[in-house]
């Protein structure tokens, strides 16, 4: 039983990082209808940047914060290029984000090399009732909870947050009212960058990242995001936790190499299930 709990708890921690990545997908998709294939890159860049800053003597906390800011800036740049000129169709933007993701491999390798990178997070273990859990796991969960709290406050209780929601609710009406939908899209990308960066900063102590880790991170995040149809962050959070725990259990009880397969199977299964519920004709927008 304690073994199960250990696996489950570590799964909750990884699930939290997936949730952050997933929310990045959701925020960007809601506002701009673009699926950001570079979402995983934000995490990788932030993780590696933190490691570099720490090795240069920048204290913990500050290093992570700076890395998240860097990831947010990268998100902004991706947004500027991907949203392009007015009238860029979302599929074109998707391919552009894919191109930017691959292009950033070059930048990452140049900056940090092609080997995996990690750094030590919060050291030590907490023990309770025969179960020991790393402090880093607890940190991940706490930070994720705080982030989600802040996000919900932002979207539900601030004027700017409501403006963002309006863009996804009815872009035409948003324009009429004077909201610059393009600028909101850029804000969404910046936020998505920050969220991805936060995920990277939290996950790197647990799992070393290298330049191509973004694929796995993005797949996990996307699989969680589609629990909520790419539109609802709350559902994505639930999906992410389920996914994280499932992966941890599979890795623990069966084989570690099957871990990545879980996300793939879950994602495909979800897609097939969602597809069967829709009519085979042209899909309507869900708001």
């Amino acid at each position: 039983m304690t073994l199960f709990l250990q696996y489950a708890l570590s799964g909750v921690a990884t699930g939290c990082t997936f949730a952050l990545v997933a929310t990045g997908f959701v925020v960007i998709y809601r506002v701009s209808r673009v699926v950001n294939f570079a979402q995983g890159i934000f995490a990788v860049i932030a993780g590696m940047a933190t490691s570099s800053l720490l090795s240069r003597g920048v204290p913990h906390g500050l290093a992570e914060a700076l890395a998240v800011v860097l990831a947010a800036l990268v998100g902004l740049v991706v947004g500027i290029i991907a949203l392009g000129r007015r009238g860029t169709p979302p599929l074109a933007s998707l391919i552009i984000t894919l191109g930017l993701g691959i292009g950033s491999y070059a930048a990452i390798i140049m900056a940090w090399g092609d080997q995996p990178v990690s750094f030590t997070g919060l050291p030590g273990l907490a023990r309770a009732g025969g179960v020991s859990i790393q402090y880093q796991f607890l940190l991940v969960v706490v930070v994720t909870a705080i982030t989600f709290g802040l996000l919900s406050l932002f979207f539900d209780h601030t004027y700017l947050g409501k403006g963002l929601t309006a863009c996804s609710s009815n872009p035409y009406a948003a324009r009429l009212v004077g909201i610059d939908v393009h600028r909101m899209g850029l804000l969404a990308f910046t936020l998505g960058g920050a969220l991805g960066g936060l995920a990277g900063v939290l996950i790197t102590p647990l799992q070393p990242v290298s330049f191509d880790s973004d694929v796995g991170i993005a797949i996990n995040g996307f699989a969680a995001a589609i629990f909520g149809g790419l539109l609802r962050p709350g559902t994505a959070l639930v999906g992410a936790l389920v996914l994280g725990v499932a992966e941890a259990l599979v890795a623990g009880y069966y084989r570690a190499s099957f871990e990545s397969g879980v996300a793939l199977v879950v994602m495909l299964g979800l897609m097939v299930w969602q597809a069967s519920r829709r009519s085979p004709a042209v899909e309507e927008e869900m708001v």
Partner: protein
Amino acid sequence: MNVLRRRSLAFWAGLAAAVASLLTPIALDDSQLTVYVFIGLSAIVVAGLSLLMGFAGQVSLGQAAFYAIGAYTAAILTRMLNVPTLLSLAIATAFTGAVAMVVGLPLLRLRGHYLAFATLAFQLIVLSAIGEFRGLTGGDTGMPGIPTLSIGPLAIQGQYRTFIYAYVTWVLVAAVMLLNRNLVRSRPGRGLRALATSEAGALAAGVPVVRYKLQVFALSAAYAGLAGGIYAFFVSYIAPGSFPVLLSVQFLIMAVVGGLGSIWGSTVGATVVYLLVQLLQSLGTGPGLPLQLPAILSYAVYGLVLVLIMLFLPQGLLPAIQGWISSQRAISAVEAPARSTPLD
């Protein structure tokens, strides 16, 4: 009069390209012929992908998976079951198409970006599966000793092996392009084009949208399977590592560069991108240069090409050149008007 002139220009250009590509192998040495073969195989895959993206509006990040399925099917049939190579090739092509039918049935109901992730996931799963079923596929270490293609009693081997493969590839590329051209001009082809412009409109006009999308998806997979089979016979040794996700991306880039839905575009795109990749490899390797340089150059160029083309030449290289020529000759372009909505 003008239209006749323009059609002649395209006709002559196409004929010239066909003849040139037919004669080129004669002038090439063995390693260059190998490049020729790989370009040809890529062109076959991309012909299908271009059709899929250009007409069905779907982004596939997993064409390399179908390429792999074709290769492994052909390899297993010939090596383990002693099926004659031509028959194996046919079966491999058909089987790959069938797999796509099954996989596409649920997935093609989804929006484009779902399919992009789904095909990526599909490829990763296929690669894992190949690694898992070691008994059948040789696992991660791969399957050596695949016999070479035999046309009837004649096996392609010996001094002119690569030379003959080059011509086999040429014939297949030509066949695939002809098939695409006839497809595009047929009634289903017009339905496909309606689909590309507006799904809702096509649906309203009675076009069986889902069925067409599925068929195009299966056809593109069949093309990839065919190319994969030839690949297996040509290189005689395949492993999961021969079919990475990056290969799917490469096919995507070739399709985008050449021009989605453009018949010649797929071949042009394959040639341009493949040669570019070769160039980068040779630029990046050399004494004193960092080991990662080829990889860095490749990634940077892939990314740059994708971004720049999608932003500035979304219709692809070939149509862009055709358009430029038309405008230079001050002939009113007969290209479809850009689809603009009231809120652009």
